[in-house]
């Protein structure tokens, strides 16, 4: 409305006083839902995402199942109150695309061959969107899968990097996404050095892409550490009980 905001101040800090390579405050909690076989709540700053896993199971509705492996069904969905303007509940083209790339990322981590003729269902609900919802959603879904006891090659940790005012920054929020030059969500199985989600929306030189990827990897390892903490917190408490 009143023109483009300053994204990087003279002190080199971002609009919310973060350094370029600094994550937002991150919260993770595993096992937050009663009905789901696995669940997790993940917050990156004001972004708040919940994920639930059901399965392996026979799908409630009829789908073509595979005799060789579990099929994965995944929905990334935004609550009507999660966005600046109220979001219609009908799936948008954006949600259709993100459901696909998240599904493919998760599918590469799950040992689906262990569960032929069954379905693993992953439901991600964005409760509050402030940038990085797909990476927060992927991170939460991976935790929910672990919580459901579904064997995975590795957890998936994810974060978005971006380019704002020419600077490569970690974990961009919605304001930075809107006014910045590039947004690059990245998801990895960190221990296996496998990038399982990668999109670039924006313009970068070859060198900037290198810098962005390096910064993403750095952030991802931090997210990965927090994931493991959240899991051990739940399961250690169980042991203590």
């Amino acid at each position, binding site marked *: 409305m009143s023109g483009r905001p300053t994204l990087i101040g003279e002190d080199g800090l971002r609009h919310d006083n973060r350094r370029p390579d600094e994550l937002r405050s991150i919260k993770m909690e595993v096992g937050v839902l*009663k009905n789901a076989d696995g669940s997790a709540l993940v917050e990156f700053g004001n972004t708040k995402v919940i994920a639930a896993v059901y399965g392996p199971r026979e799908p409630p509705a009829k789908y073509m199942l595979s005799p060789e492996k579990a099929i994965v069904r995944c929905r990334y969905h935004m*609550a009507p*109150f999660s966005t600046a303007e109220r979001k219609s509940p009908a799936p948008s083209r954006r949600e259709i695309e993100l459901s696909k790339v998240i599904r493919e990322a998760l599918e590469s981590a799950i040992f689906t061959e262990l569960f032929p003729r069954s379905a693993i269902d992953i439901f991600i609900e964005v409760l*509050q969107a402030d940038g990085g919802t797909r990476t927060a959603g992927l991170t939460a879904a991976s935790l929910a899968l672990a919580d459901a006891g579904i064997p995975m090659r590795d957890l998936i940790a994810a974060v978005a990097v971006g380019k704002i005012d020419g600077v490569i920054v970690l974990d961009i929020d919605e304001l930075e996404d809107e006014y910045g030059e590039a947004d690059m969500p990245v998801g990895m199985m960190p221990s296996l050095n496998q990038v399982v989600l990668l999109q670039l929306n924006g313009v970068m030189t070859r060198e900037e892409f290198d810098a962005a990827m390096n910064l993403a990897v750095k952030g991802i390892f931090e997210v990965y550490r927090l994931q493991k903490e959240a899991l051990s917190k739940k399961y250690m408490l169980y042991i203590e009980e």
Partner: protein
Amino acid sequence: MSVTPIQPPIPKLKREAIVSALKKGARVDGRGFEDFRPITIELNPIPRRSNGSALVKLGNTSILVGVKISVERPFPDRPSEGVLQVHAEFVPLASPSFEPGPPDENAVEVARVIDRCLRESKSIDLGELVIVPGKYSWSIYNDIYLLDHDGNVTDASTLASMAALNVARLPKLVSVENDQVKIDYGTMDKQLPVKLNVVTVTLVKIGGYILLDPNLDEEILAEAKVTVGIDSGGRIVGIQKSGGGLSVSELNYAVDTAIKKSRELLTLLEKALKTV
């Protein structure tokens, strides 16, 4: 078209346990017939994107309500009123038996029952929500999101809606000039004109017994269900019976119980709102 739902059957042992407990005047989770499950109300869990929000847990049932407010054109037949819309989504996250898709008849019913209770009781004074008659008024979207389903979604949703509406704030109205309205959606300003609070109280009938606040097993077993809306003045502001039949005297008993027990919910709500 409405079709008989095919419910996952409740194991026979569980069913017998529930019914035999009832015969002894108790419920398997230790509650009396007229007891609510534990209730928690969290205010404004969605502070950045909703104008008001609340997370209510009623036992294991978990409801998130977000209220969004924007300026829109009022309905042509109500030019001097704001608009209140209640919607509910039963997202597949909340239950193994839900599938993605447009709201099914259960979600539609919950939303419409709550919508009517709020509207008929005049809980929100819509007349205060007009900005320029016939041209601009505030539209209130009350979106009910079911996160975890363990029965009695309606009462939890009414409570969460009422809490969210109480804490909601209108965006700042910057100026009204020459039929042009300027809104600063980033700044929260005045509260909504909530004139009175409304709650709903739901009861079911199982094997001749009338129980308050059914959990999911009890709902599946129930022969009949009735939801009664009560406002802070003790008036009946809505009724919805579903499932099978009830005698007139059973209905009277249910209505009396609902009126009586509504005080607990209203007190709880008021207490929670005082913490803001």
